[in-house]
């Protein structure tokens, strides 16, 4: 039976502000889930803390609303213990690139097969609008007493440096585009990041829906606004690394990602910046160590026989022990 959008609804009251970009991300995610060949019983959504992280309660799938900045720890732990799960993590830019940025970097090193969507609005909404890590230096959003004193983190560049194997950006109100990015991220074999730009109608009065939509920039010819975001693919950009590429070509590809990631302001690229499926995923690396890992991962190993006795053969284990744990023969 095909999954319908209504199947993904819960009865939980949605308390996001009217016009919040979170709605667009939620809608895109749900549309993507209905269009992908996934078993909804295997989908586990993880979130951090913040407005965006309440998303899991509004979605009828296993939902784990964790700690501020720690969503990737919980999500990776679950995926490793049961690789059959389709794990999708969500959280804000403060959550993932501020308090949780250490985990962000190390998740890239592992390259576990899962997806991570950052709701990127430049502010800490739930605590009333402080500057978040992606807000640019000198910007003064509505509730800041002084302009932002820190430079911004560039999530695309940081993801590349950290070893993410799928790096994309989209925009919360371009739900069709974001939906496609989510589908690609989930289908990608490895750790996939989507930097989802989103307005915060309450606290970010600079990067607003109108700003992204270019309503201050009317095309003199068509008399229509010129949106700031543009689709990378439409420019012929290709960020895919393939197995037959030389080291040199891979290097050039990386430079192209960095170059595109630096565009901001009047031209904001969206789309897949980088995709590399030649890097073995963590699960494959684990299988090298434990050949039975994928067949009987931690969550699926039977621990005891029917009488409750452990299945582990302690005597054999003891025999394998090295000198420090010397076992005497009879």
């Amino acid at each position: 039976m095909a999954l319908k959008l209504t199947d993904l609804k819960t009865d939980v009251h949605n308390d996001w502000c009217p016009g919040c970009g979170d709605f667009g991300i939620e809608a895109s995610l749900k549309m993507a889930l209905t269009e992908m060949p996934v078993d909804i019983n295997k989908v586990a959504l993880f979130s951090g803390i913040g407005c965006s992280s309440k998303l899991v309660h509004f979605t009828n799938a296993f939902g784990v609303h964790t700690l501020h900045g720690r969503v990737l720890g919980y999500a990776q732990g679950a995926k490793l213990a049961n690789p059959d799960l389709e794990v999708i993590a969500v959280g804000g830019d403060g959550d993932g690139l501020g308090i949780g940025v250490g985990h962000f970097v190390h998740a890239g090193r592992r390259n576990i097969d899962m997806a991570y969507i950052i709701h990127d609005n430049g502010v800490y909404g739930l605590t009333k609008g402080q500057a978040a890590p992606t807000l640019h230096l000198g910007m003064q959003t509505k509730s800041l007493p002084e302009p932002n004193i820190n430079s911004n983190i560039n999530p695309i560049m940081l993801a590349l440096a950290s070893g993410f194997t799928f790096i994309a950006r989209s925009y919360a109100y371009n739900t069709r585009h974001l939906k496609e990015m989510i589908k690609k991220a989930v289908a990608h074999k490895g750790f996939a990041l989507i930097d989802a730009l989103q307005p915060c109608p309450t606290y970010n009065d600079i990067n607003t829906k109108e700003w992204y939509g270019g309503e201050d920039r009317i095309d003199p010819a068509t008399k229509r606004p010129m949106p700031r975001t543009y689709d990378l693919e439409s420019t012929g950009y290709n960020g895919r690394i393939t197995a037959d590429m030389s080291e040199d070509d891979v290097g050039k590809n990386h430079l192209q990602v960095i170059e595109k990631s630096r565009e901001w302001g009047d031209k904001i690229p969206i789309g897949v910046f980088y995709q590399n499926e030649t890097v073995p995923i963590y699960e494959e690396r684990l299988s090298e160590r434990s050949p039975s890992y994928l067949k009987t991962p931690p969550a699926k190993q039977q621990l005891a026989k029917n009488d409750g006795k452990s299945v582990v053969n302690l005597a054999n284990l003891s025999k394998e022990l090295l000198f420090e744990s010397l076992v005497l023969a009879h």
Partner: protein
Amino acid sequence: MSRASVKINDLSWMTGGPQGSGVDSSANIFAGACVLGGLWTFGLREYYSSIKGPHSYFEVRVNSDKIRSHVNNVNVLATFDAETLIRHADEVAPGGGILYDPTFSSIEIDKVDTIETPVVLRIKARLAKQGLPGTVNGILDEARKRGVNLFPIPYNDIIAKTAAQIGEHQLSKLSRIVNVLSVAASFAILGFDETYLNQSIERAFASKKKVVDMNEIGAKLAYDAAKTQLKQPFPFQLQPIQNQPRLLLMGVEAVALGKLVGGCRVQTYYPITPAADESEFLESHGNFDISGGNNPGQKGSILVTQTEDEIAAITMATGAALTGARAATSTSGPGFSLMVEGLGWAGMNEVPLVITHYQRGGPATGQPTRHEQGDLKFVLSAAHGEFPRIVLCSGDMEESFYDAIRIFNYAERFQMPSIHLIDKGLANNSMTISPPKADLVPIQRGKLIEADHQGNGEGEPYRRFAFTQDGVSPRAVLGMPGYRFWNTGDEHDEMGHIEEDPDNRVKMMTKRMTKLDTAAKEIPEDEKFNFFPSSKKQADVTIVSWGSTKGPILDAMKLLEKDGIGVEFLQIRLVNPFPTDAVKQKLSRAKLTVDIEQNYSGQMAAVIAEKTMIDVKNKIVKFNGRPMSQDEIYQSVKQVISNPEQNRRVVLTHGA
């Protein structure tokens, strides 16, 4: 020396040297040979927080009966560097022996730059008082005057001869066998058959034939060289005895074995002393034989993951536990400090997460490689807010093994984070034990919903946090069809959705906390505490303690009872939920209660006061980073009994 004064199978042997020079392996080879000869051992390992250079030492006590602690006096000091000799010679009791390199005799104490200045000054002052020079010779003279036998072992000659025999011209390649030479020389003066030594060497270097050969040849030469020095039998002798199979284990290994048997299939960790040894052991035994189960013909496996920090360690383990895998993380004080927010989340979401916590000297970095039991009150209250947790403390190797299984049972049955509290003394010391039984503690998974159950029927949705009589709700895991659920660190309703309603809050808090009463009811008494009675009907003194002080207390009890002092010992193992009634009952009829703990303030005494309103007035504490010895407890308990009013707080200080 008369024959009657020879002590058989009862001695303490010590070796030492720069860290990384093979001190641990020589002690293991020594202990291994003793175990192969049927004897029982206890090993005390002391080292600095450093990789190479600073002094470390290892004391091995040997006996024909099971022993559980170290003693103050050393009977044989086997040295192969000057520093060990200078630092430890005064610990050798009259009648004992010192093995040393005669080429070190003229070394001046203040020229050994790895010895701290206060130690140099202390030793030089001691020698000056006796009119002795501040050199190794002075140290040797002092020992000789005290009645210690000196055995110069010409290590360099032996190494040269070994090199000649195996046809190796580069002597430096052989220099590292010096530690084994000191072990061989020790066995010669102790009269212990060299075949056990050779077997032990073979086990130690099992995979390296060439290394075995060079060590065995050197050992033979050292054994013979030491033997020629014996003018009369040495007053301490080792003789093989018949015995059952036994294991020589370190505490971290006992815990790791227990975890594997107990079904732990995910372990996360961030490197920290002394906990990391356990994770490394698990990783190197990550695939193991199973019989039965759902994976016939295949191996069981544990996923060991090194994380970026302890926050990731606890959150990853928690995520893993949500899938139904038995998951644990293992750490020490500083790491646990980082974990506490995650601990609270696991409490709020009723996740069966296991944390193995190895205490070491605190606060802050404290004494990273030294022993302390300073975290009891911290683990009892760590993280903001109130939530239930299990805290279980093991006292020795066997308990560590079985408790490592039980802690998972508790975690799953009562659905709460469960802390297995161990300490550095237990973690790093070694001990000979009878092999534990894999099936003594059956695996109990509580209200875990079986994975093959399809769906939850029609109508009623599954409620992960359903209100129940005992507070424990049927537990589904991520990915189970028909059992969708939500988790959140916020207060939540039965479904797991955020709910701030005050009535729900009262019910949900009560539900969670009720599980602690359920645990208190269901966990049997003999898993909560051990009580060792006195041979007397009314004991003269009741010792109360917890953790690895168990070993020296039990050994000291034997000596005290021999002296006619009636001693009983209450070892508290489950600290949360606390066995209030039993502790109250035992302590209220005690003539004199003494609290023995390896911390400054007597934390268990404070817990006892809080739970039972009983004020344990007499305390024996130690916080210099070195574990308590049998002798220290024997002497200090006597001191307290002699005048309890005057000896309210005895501070122990032995150890180098």
